[in-house]
């Protein structure tokens, strides 16, 4: 490795980090605007045209805020926790290819690297929860640990199906293998990975580690100013990461209609990649507008009783498909059938548990109604 290589690497890392920060700012604006519209309001309108400068105003506000260190905290854990969450969230982007040719370092074991590094952020959550000397933070950290560790299993096993079909952990190869998108070939895995991915980054309806009404913001309660904004950046970077992964693994990455050679190809690849990613991001926001938050026992039950069996079933199906060389449509049909029957079984079980409403005679109140 020569000096120019090192210089090039540092430059590209700087560009990528700047890019990710920009994306995070754009996502916060997009989310506020979209959720506002979904709730029949405008969202931010006061800062600049259409409130476009709202993220910048937020950044200025966060940077000028005091960084409070509460009394009786574990100082080392408290100050290092934002780093422990922030660094993995940004290190992951090193191995993400944005088009066939644009990536800082395309790793042959890219998928493994991504999940290995993203697993590290849990440590930061627990450190923040422990270091804050706050009951809510502690509870939030414990919840984060429970949820993130549980959901890593279905996430990774669900992704394994994709890796098996494409015979590679290299994201570029996985995309290159998607003549038919893997969402068609593996709807079951898509469902599992999407749900588990939402839970991994703590998006609604799986935001129990950060639930405001229960644990007042979870591990981040005691943080303010720049350290809080590091958590915030990591959270949105992770949300974007989930969308990117879904795009790469199931929606054909940068594959799309467009010219096949030269400059146009690169531009079209980037276009398809980002438009697919944006659609997934919008779906994530959309889900947030409609679904109420799960209870913690429901979240754990969903992971252990539902998603993990389904992900193993998907692994089994994919194994049979590869071993016996079944046709493509058969695996997608079987995958769908498993999904639908699982849904049917859950609904049946729920129906049998809920007591039917019965007619009750309401006593008629006589006399004048007060009030």
């Amino acid at each position, binding site marked *: 490795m020569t000096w120019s290589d090192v210089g090039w690497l540092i430059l590209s890392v700087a560009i990528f980090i700047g890019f990710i920060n920009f994306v995070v700012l754009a996502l916060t604006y997009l989310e506020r605007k*979209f959720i506002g*519209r*979904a709730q*029949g*309001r*405008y969202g931010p309108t006061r800062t600049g045209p259409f409130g476009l400068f709202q993220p910048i105003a937020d950044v200025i506000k966060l940077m000028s805020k005091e960084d409070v260190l509460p009394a009786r905290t574990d100082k080392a854990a408290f100050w290092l926790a934002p780093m422990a969450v922030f660094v993995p969230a940004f290190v992951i982007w090193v191995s993400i290819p944005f088009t066939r040719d644009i990536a800082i370092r395309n790793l042959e074991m890219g998928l493994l690297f991504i999940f290995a590094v993203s697993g590290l952020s849990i440590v930061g959550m627990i450190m923040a929860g422990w270091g804050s000397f706050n009951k809510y933070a502690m509870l939030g950290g414990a919840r984060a640990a429970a949820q993130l560790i549980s959901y890593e299993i279905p996430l990774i096993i669900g992704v394994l199906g994709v890796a098996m079909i494409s015979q590679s952990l290299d994201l570029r190869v996985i995309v290159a293998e998607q003549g038919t998108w893997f969402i068609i070939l593996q709807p079951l895995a898509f469902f599992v990975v999407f749900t588990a991915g939402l839970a991994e980054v703590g998006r609604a309806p799986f935001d129990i580690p950060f639930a405001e009404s229960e644990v007042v913001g979870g591990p981040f309660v005691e943080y303010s100013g720049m350290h809080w904004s590091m958590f915030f950046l990591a959270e949105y970077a992770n949300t974007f990461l989930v969308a990117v992964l879904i795009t790469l693994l199931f929606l054909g990455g940068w594959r799309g209609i467009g010219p096949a050679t030269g400059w146009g190809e690169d531009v079209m690849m980037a276009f398809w990649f980002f438009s697919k990613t944006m659609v997934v991001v919008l779906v994530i926001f*959309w*889900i947030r507008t*409609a679904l109420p938050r799960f209870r913690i026992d429901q979240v754990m039950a969903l992971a252990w009783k539902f998603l993990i069996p389904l992900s193993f079933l998907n692994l089994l199906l994919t194994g049979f498909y590869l071993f016996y060389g079944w046709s493509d449509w058969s695996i997608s049909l079987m995958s769908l059938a498993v999904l639908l029957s699982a849904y049917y079984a859950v609904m049946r079980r729920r129906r049998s548990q809920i007591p039917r409403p019965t007619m009750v005679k309401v006593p008629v109140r006589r006399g004048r109604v007060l009030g």
Partner: protein
Amino acid sequence: MIGIFRGLMVTIATVFKKPVTVQYPDGDPIKIPGKKSTRRVHLPLSPRYMGFPALLWDDRVDEPACTGCLVCMRYCPTECITVTMKDNPLHAEGKSSRRKIVDNFEIRMERCILCAICVEVCNFEAIAMTDFHEEANLSRGGLVATKEDLFRMGRDYQKRAGIVVGSDSAEESEEPEE
């Protein structure tokens, strides 16, 4: 699951509807007759909306209905009202039945809690809760509503709400002529 999709459909349908937010005070400004400033469009006020208190005008004799009796000032819980009284010149001319009339009347809007106790205790129905609420000001002194402000607000409100300083109650409290 069906419930989930139903909820998702509701939210995505709302995205494509016009938001219900009324952009007050950013809507189109409307000129208020008889005043230099403009008023912004907001949602219609409820008929019983309680804004700032204002003094009513007796159109029959063309003088304020307030006699300056100080009852409101004494009952005001936040002590935001200041009243002084004077002899009524119109009474000396025989045009009015009010022997005394208000000389100066000030309400300090920043202290007023809009409790309507002054309206409650007024013996002459000379003060009323209007629907004025856009009296934001950049200086503290601007928050003091003078007699002229109160009459302007009161007459405007009387015109819009159709309040005539009641002939019945006024005649009841009328003092016998000498």
